């Protein structure tokens, strides 16, 4: 259970996230929606402390996350994986090494500096890649992949962390509809099969409606909606998006291709048999 108690973020004079208090039970898939600049990204990045909160508290299974330092903080980041809009992979390393870097927390100084990974880690990374249909590119240099492929590699890296929580910061904002579906299906499968809590920032309304158990709407740093997709009426949505409502809705109209996959694991578009 992830509890937020008045979590705040202030940049100089502007308040990005006003005191937020809510609770996310284990295994829930949560979508955070709102227009750009509403504080979604800041809220998400505070959870793994890539952004430091300015005030308030955050508890995971009763442990105070906001007070962690040094190794304990890195342990929490290892438990709480993150997927980024721009993938944030190391382009010049191969795919396999990028995935294995998800286990760096468990390495000692020498082995991580020398880049030594065990056979078990290699096997585990290959399995994770295979689960996302990406094992065939394991030895390719990462920056030769397409955006959709990179995001799946990033999810594989997150998986080998064996996290308890998965954060996804606009995971599909840089992808075409087909790849967006593959990535969202993968996140949903992880949520269902592994029982991971998934917290996902989304800018399109219907993706959130179709994939998430719960939707949190943010406006100017304030949580203005918190409920199930069915509770999110068009009027409530219009309020969240304000001036950007037309855009969010029209996107909802055009991205009807995005329906949760019938079979739960992600189906890769072209899979090389090996």
């Amino acid at each position: 259970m992830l509890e937020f108690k008045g979590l705040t973020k202030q940049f100089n004079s502007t308040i990005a996230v006003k005191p937020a208090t809510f609770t996310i039970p284990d295994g829930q898939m949560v979508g955070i929606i709102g227009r750009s600049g509403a504080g979604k990204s800041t809220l998400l990045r505070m959870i793994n402390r890539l952004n430091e909160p300015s005030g308030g508290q955050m508890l995971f299974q009763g442990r105070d996350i906001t007070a962690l330092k040094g190794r304990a903080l890195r342990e929490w980041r290892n438990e709480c994986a993150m997927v980024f809009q721009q993938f944030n992979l190391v382009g010049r390393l191969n795919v396999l090494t990028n995935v294995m870097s998800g286990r760096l927390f468990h390495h000692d100084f020498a082995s991580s500096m020398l880049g030594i990974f065990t056979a078990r880690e290699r096997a585990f990374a290959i399995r994770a890649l295979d689960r996302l249909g990406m094992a065939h590119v394991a030895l390719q240099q990462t920056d030769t992949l397409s955006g959709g492929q990179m995001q799946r590699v990033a999810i594989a890296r997150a998986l080998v962390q064996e996290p308890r929580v998965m954060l996804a910061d606009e995971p599909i904002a840089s992808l075409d509809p087909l790849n967006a579906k593959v990535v969202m299906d993968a996140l949903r499968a992880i949520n269902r099969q592994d029982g991971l809590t998934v917290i996902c920032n989304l800018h399109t309304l219907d993706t959130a409606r179709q994939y998430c158990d719960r939707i949190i709407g943010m406006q100017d740093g304030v949580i203005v909606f918190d409920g199930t997709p069915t509770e999110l009426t068009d009027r409530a949505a219009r309020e969240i998006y304000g001036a950007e409502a037309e855009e969010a809705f029209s996107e909802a109209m055009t991205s009807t291709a995005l329906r949760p996959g019938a079979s739960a694991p992600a189906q890769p578009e072209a899979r090389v048999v090996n």
Partner: protein
Amino acid sequence: MSTLTYAAISDVDIAATRKRHPKAFGDPFATTLKAASWAFIAVYLVWSLGFFEIGKLLSASDRAWALITRMVVWQDMATWQYYNIYKGIAQTIAMAFVGTLLGTIFALGLAFFAARNTMPVGVIRHAVRRMLDVFRGIDQVVWGLVFVRAVGLGPLAGVLAIWISDMGNLAKLYSEAIENIDRKQVEGVRATGADTSRIIRFGYLPQILPVFISLSLYSFESSTRSATILGLVGAGGIGMIIIERFRAGLFDQVAFVVLNVLVVIAVIDWGSGLIRKRFIGERGH
């Protein structure tokens, strides 16, 4: 494939994965090669430090410590003869300026003999280039010593040393700039029916002049740096004061002089940056 935990991976799983993706488990040849090259570098470093008697560093710690202490603790500052120090620094700058200017003037002439598009005769071009190689290949300090032998101690030898090494450097860089010239602009001027002198004035000069000025300014900066040490071999400037006072064991004064030189060089770099910006804008390199 469904959920699998890291702890649950058995040797059988590893073997099965290895069978399907043998290359993912490391290419033994590449791994060995990589390890061997690192080992070679490590062995070389250890061997070479032994060869250079690194042990002397440890046994010298007392002496080194005393030296550092005397450099940091400044004594009898009233007797430091500041006039000579600043005269030496001024002389260094003057040497660099005269030397670079002479080097620039001569390089301007030589560059056209070393560039492919202005000197079609291969023999002459190569002869000039090899001569420039010799000017550049011998360090400025060595030139300094040679000229001290030829014309005696003092700044004249220093100016000559800067002149000859700057001439070598600049002529090479200038000739590259001439070779990289944009032919289209020259053709454009020629198409107006201009004579040779006008083709040079309006076709070549606007393209190469900013580059030349920029290169000469850089050369002046680097010459002020290098001119500070020409005095170590007796070729004038602040280096003569540094080595005199160092030999006399006045380490605090040496430290003071070096600090002053660092400040002066920083000021010159800043000033020449301003001039460069004023004349050729940000694009000049």
